[in-house]
């Protein structure tokens, strides 16, 4: 009965709609977006607005405007600066972090931000016995896996004890997983907190209309500089062509992740395009355990044989730059400026292959159809295939849908493939090499070193960099690691993506951040 009445109601509305539509066809629409309200075209519906529960950059873009963490990235960099914490001290061996908290900060629900609130946040995520642990799951809680205990020393002092020195801790706190939620709001909403988010940021949550929009409004009681717009509306538009059409038609004021081939549409005065390199690297994992790539010379040959300039300029239309090594240049403080990308030199590649006796080898190449950070993987894969065939390899591509692809690649390439596409976006120079280049990070040990690269020196450098608390010292260790890895060539280093966004001429003061997060506090719109 219920079903029937649904059907009948739907049909009646539909029939009425059809009649009125036919009568009123030449409607003058073209609604302008309202002033002082910024409408952002997002790539998907957010999963949740609970920062501890989400994993997607798409969701982070909303969260960083509603919540704040103890630390944040200094504008224009990936270096950490104080946010809700005004300062911190680290003990001698790097296992105790004591933070002084900003006084007088209130959550949007009027409850105070203090050390107890911080403790609640981390206990909820990490302690399976915490009464609100069931508001999870918290898929990225391992970012804080080193935290043994959190202690509220007094109202404005909180102390974290780590089970081992872990230098990326401060930048993980600046990552969206470390954003602080209101404990009282979690207690009030329980599992529904993700749809009723309460933070302390420059915008407060107003409403979430499923599949239509998330609306946030200016927080008039914000402790810092007030937001530049009355409200921001985040609209999910999953289809890239439709997102471009909405931007052209004036239905949205800003869009992120413009497809490279559509950038040409936004030339001229009506729009401005922002670009920002970020902590992204696109590479090929080479199987260093067996087959031709077990020989370092053949791995280097692959780096010489592939025309990366052509890939970033022609396939990606200039939306990426050529990668030189395993660490993206966006980590300016830890990046080795002295590294030059492998030049495109098919002659040198051929002679290296000949030297190694690998002429005419057959290579199995895993390509994905799409996926987070993978850019345009199929055209990139075929361009790479052509370049490798030009130096004498016989390359067989196997294409997989993204989740299947991860299921094939993450357990390791042994016995299956010689090379695979991969891309990572991280928040700390430690993350990717630690998870994907150490000999203790082979898939059997739960890591992502799917190509079985092993170099004792690299292992030692990465362990040392993780435990050093002095940033200069860490930077020196990472730089050394990068030159060794580049020489060893466990990967083909292909591209560093530049995130882009388009804004209409009504939007001012907008800039992208290297963290790929979208800070809209200062943006104004007339």
């Amino acid at each position, binding site marked *: 009965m219920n079903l029937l009445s649904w059907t009948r109601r739907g049909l009646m509305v539909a029939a009425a709609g059809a009649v009125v539509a036919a009568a009123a066809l030449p409607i003058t629409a073209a609604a302008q977006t309202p002033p002082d309200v910024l409408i952002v075209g997002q790539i998907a519906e957010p999963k949740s607005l609970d920062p501890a529960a989400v*994993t997607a950059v798409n969701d982070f873009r909303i969260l960083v405007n509603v919540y704040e963490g103890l630390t944040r990235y200094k504008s224009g960099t990936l270096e950490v600066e104080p946010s809700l914490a005004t300062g911190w001290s680290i003990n001698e061996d790097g296992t105790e972090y004591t933070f002084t908290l900003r006084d007088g900060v209130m959550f949007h629900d009027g409850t105070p931000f203090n050390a107890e609130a911080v403790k609640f946040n981390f206990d909820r995520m990490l302690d399976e016995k915490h009464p609100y642990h069931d508001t999870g799951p918290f898929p990225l809680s391992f970012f804080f896996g080193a935290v043994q205990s959190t202690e509220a020393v007094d109202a404005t002092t909180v102390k974290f004890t780590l089970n081992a020195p872990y230098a990326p801790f401060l930048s993980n706190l600046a990552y969206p997983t470390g954003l602080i939620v209101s404990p009282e709001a979690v207690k009030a909403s329980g599992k529904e907190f993700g749809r009723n988010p309460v933070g302390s940021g420059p915008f407060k949550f107003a409403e979430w209309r499923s599949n239509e929009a998330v609306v946030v409004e200016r927080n008039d009681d914000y402790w810092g500089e007030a937001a530049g717009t009355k409200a921001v509306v985040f609209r999910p538009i999953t289809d890239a062509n439709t997102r471009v059409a909405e931007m052209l038609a004036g239905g949205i004021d800003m869009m992120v992740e413009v497809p490279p081939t559509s950038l040409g549409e936004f030339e001229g005065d009506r729009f401005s395009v922002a670009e920002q390199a970020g902590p992204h690297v696109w590479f090929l994992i080479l199987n260093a355990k067996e087959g031709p790539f077990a020989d370092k010379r053949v791995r280097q040959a692959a780096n010489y044989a592939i025309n990366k300039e052509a890939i970033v300029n022609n396939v990606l239309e200039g939306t990426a730059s050529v990668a030189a090594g395993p660490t993206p240049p966006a980590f300016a403080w830890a990046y080795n400026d002295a590294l030059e990308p492998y030049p495109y030199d098919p002659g040198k590649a051929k002679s290296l292959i000949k030297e190694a006796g690998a002429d005419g080898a057959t290579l199995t190449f895993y390509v994905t159809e799409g996926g987070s950070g993978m850019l345009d993987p199929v055209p990139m894969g075929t361009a790479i295939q052509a370049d490798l065939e030009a130096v004498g390899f016989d390359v067989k591509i196997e294409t997989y849908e993204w989740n299947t692809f991860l299921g094939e690649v993450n357990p390791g390439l042994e016995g299956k493939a010689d090379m695979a596409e991969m891309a990572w976006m991280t928040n700390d120079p430690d993350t990717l090499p630690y998870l994907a280049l150490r000999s203790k990070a082979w898939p059997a040990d739960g890591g992502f070193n799917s190509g079985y690269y092993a170099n004792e020196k690299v292992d030692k450098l990465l362990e040392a960099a993780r435990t050093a608390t002095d940033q200069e010292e860490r930077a020196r260790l990472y730089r050394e690691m990068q030159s060794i890895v580049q020489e060893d060539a466990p990967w083909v280093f292909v591209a560093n993506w530049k995130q882009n966004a388009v804004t209409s001429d009504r939007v001012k003061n907008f800039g992208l951040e290297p963290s790929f997060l979208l800070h809209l506090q200062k943006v104004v719109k007339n």
Partner: protein
Amino acid sequence: MGGYILKRLVSAVPVLLGITIIVFLIMSLIPGDPATAILGSYATPENVEKLNRDLGLDKSMVQRYFIWLGNMLTGDFGRSFSLNRPVIDEVLERFNATLILAGTSFVLCAILGILAGVASAARQYGLADKAITFVVLIGISVPSFFLGMMMILLFAVDLRWLPVSGMFAIYGGGDLPDLINHLIMPALALAAVATGVIARLSRSAMLEVLRQDYIRTARAKGVPERRVIMGHALRAAMVSVIPVLGIQAGFVLSGAVYIEIVFQWPGVGRMLVDAILKRDLLLVQGGVVFVAACYVIFNIVVDAAQSLLDPRIKT
């Protein structure tokens, strides 16, 4: 009649049960699991195992199937992993949107298709017949998503008459004129192919009926041509058109998937595509079962309507 419908309803039960098994098997057997989809690059075996446990996916397939089925019989469709809300809330909300879109399209294609077919048949090989046949051929040949994109470029981006996408204006909309404004393009794009099919079929059905003796008799009696066509011929022709309407309703529903993506209509088709990509098992399963149930019921209604029109079809 009542007995016939009851019989059909009873026979729908094994069909729906079969659908639950098929959709469950497909979602369980395709490679990739929800934890991998959620964790992305961070899907270490350890993280995947922990998250699967948190999501309740560590039980055997048979156990999970019966838990799911049992819960569903009590009206509990479970919770979506990717949207973090009850599946049934999401499905009902989305289905409402799809029903508005597909329902409008269906009414449009039925009315326009039958009118076009009758107009063509009324004067075979006349100017109207040729023009309609030509337009119908285009309607059938152009893929609906392409038609939709072209409509967006012309009516929304260039002329700015209509909004590009969505179901309501994003700020300060929500009333009926707003809905209609957003509905025009997707409904027309979705109706195009089905209109063509129905027009062709109505034309040939009408032509056949018009050749029959009783039509000649009616004309000889001096019945006005309008009444011959709209009264005598149309009712007889509808007997062969209506079952096709039922089939076209299915096509309109499935075609809505493309149209919903192009126009970002918040319907059940777009929901299913997103859910499959994110391996949101319960949302896909719940959505498919719900849509299938509606389709089965719709077909029963169409069959009943047919037997009302043509008493020779014994119930």
